[in-house]
């Protein structure tokens, strides 16, 4: 299906459930909230909100008698929800949930350029205090986010454009080709992975979905145009999008170079005696790989393709020349 159509598909049940679990407790605690306010607050369309509330209307606990079903009342554009007191109970996290929340929150709070970081740090502190030493063990104070990634000069502009669906003109430095290009993009998701900010966007230069490292964006300029989101995936997506013309590169890594398999996408990994690893990596372009191999030196051996060895040797020779 074309992406525009794919996006119109009904939301997944899991997404809808997640949404209901956020919206309903709010509406229970704030009786008479206007539809307009709820739509604005949760970033929904009015149709989505009303569909969700209609679904809720026939939900409840066994034995599902009229007295057990949730009562939704919408009058003059305002919403009341009754018979759903169990949603009003404070959220109690299990130890595993609290731990996951604390770790993800700590990683996010340590991300460079996040305006909400102080609020997040304060929320984490409260989470730690509220749950007490029993739930979080001796974790607070022992977990810190890894060193901050590169600062992102245009983060606010990128996040703002993604939120309001505005097309941007950017100058981008691609590490894979060492080229800076100007392109127009429709930024849909701005997210953090492995300590760096990424932008999942539709790239009008290649007429395809592209993932941009936000710290490699050299300039951002609004175009004044808006776009219809295509539903591109953000956080949690693989950072490498396989292409049809990808090469399969097979490398033998010494124990010192095992991090490569964790940092880059691999399609196969074989453990070797002595702690080394043999990996197969899909690669669209090899310029970045040649530079990675130059950096790894004797800790990585190219097994396939044969001509990659020659290109790394050539790169080493050209680099060596600089030093006279």
């Amino acid at each position: 299906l074309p992406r525009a159509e794919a996006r119109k598909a009904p939301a997944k049940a899991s997404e809808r459930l997640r949404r209901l679990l956020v919206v309903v407790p709010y509406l229970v605690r704030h009786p008479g909230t206007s539809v307009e306010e709820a739509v604005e607050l949760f970033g929904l369309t009015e149709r989505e909100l009303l569909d969700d509330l209609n679904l809720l209307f026939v939900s409840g606990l066994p034995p599902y008698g009229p007295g057990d079903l949730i009562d939704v009342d919408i009058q003059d554009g305002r919403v009341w929800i009754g018979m759903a007191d169990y949603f009003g109970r404070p959220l109690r996290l299990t130890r595993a949930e609290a731990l996951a929340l604390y770790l993800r929150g700590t990683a996010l709070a340590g991300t460079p350029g996040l305006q909400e970081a102080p609020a997040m740090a304060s929320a984490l502190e409260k989470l730690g205090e509220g749950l007490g030493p029993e739930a979080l063990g001796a974790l607070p104070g022992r977990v810190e986010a890894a060193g901050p990634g590169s600062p992102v000069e245009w983060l606010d502009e990128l996040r703002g454009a993604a939120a309001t669906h505005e097309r941007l003109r950017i100058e981008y430095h691609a590490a894979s080709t060492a080229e800076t290009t100007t392109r127009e993009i429709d930024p849909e998701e701005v997210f953090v992975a492995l300590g760096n900010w990424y932008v999942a966007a539709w790239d009008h230069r290649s007429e395809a979905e592209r993932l941009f490292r936000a710290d490699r964006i050299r300039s951002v300029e609004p175009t004044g145009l808006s776009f219809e989101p295509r539903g591109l995936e953000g956080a949690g997506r693989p950072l490498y999008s396989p292409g049809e013309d990808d090469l399969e590169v097979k490398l033998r890594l010494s124990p010192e170079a095992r991090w490569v398999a964790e940092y880059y996408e691999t399609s196969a990994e074989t453990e070797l005696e002595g702690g080394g690893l043999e990996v197969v990596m899909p690669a669209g372009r090899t310029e970045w790989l040649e530079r990675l191999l130059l950096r790894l030196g004797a800790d990585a051996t190219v097994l396939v393709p044969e001509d990659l060895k020659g290109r790394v040797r050539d790169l080493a020779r050209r680099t060596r020349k600089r030093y006279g």
Partner: protein
Amino acid sequence: VLSFGPDAEVIDPPELRDEVIGRLEATLAAR
């Protein structure tokens, strides 16, 4: 520094410069 290839050269400190040259020569000898 090596991941920049010929686009970067270490000028100072000399120890790092020597280390980079050493690694480049090891790569050229091994491959």
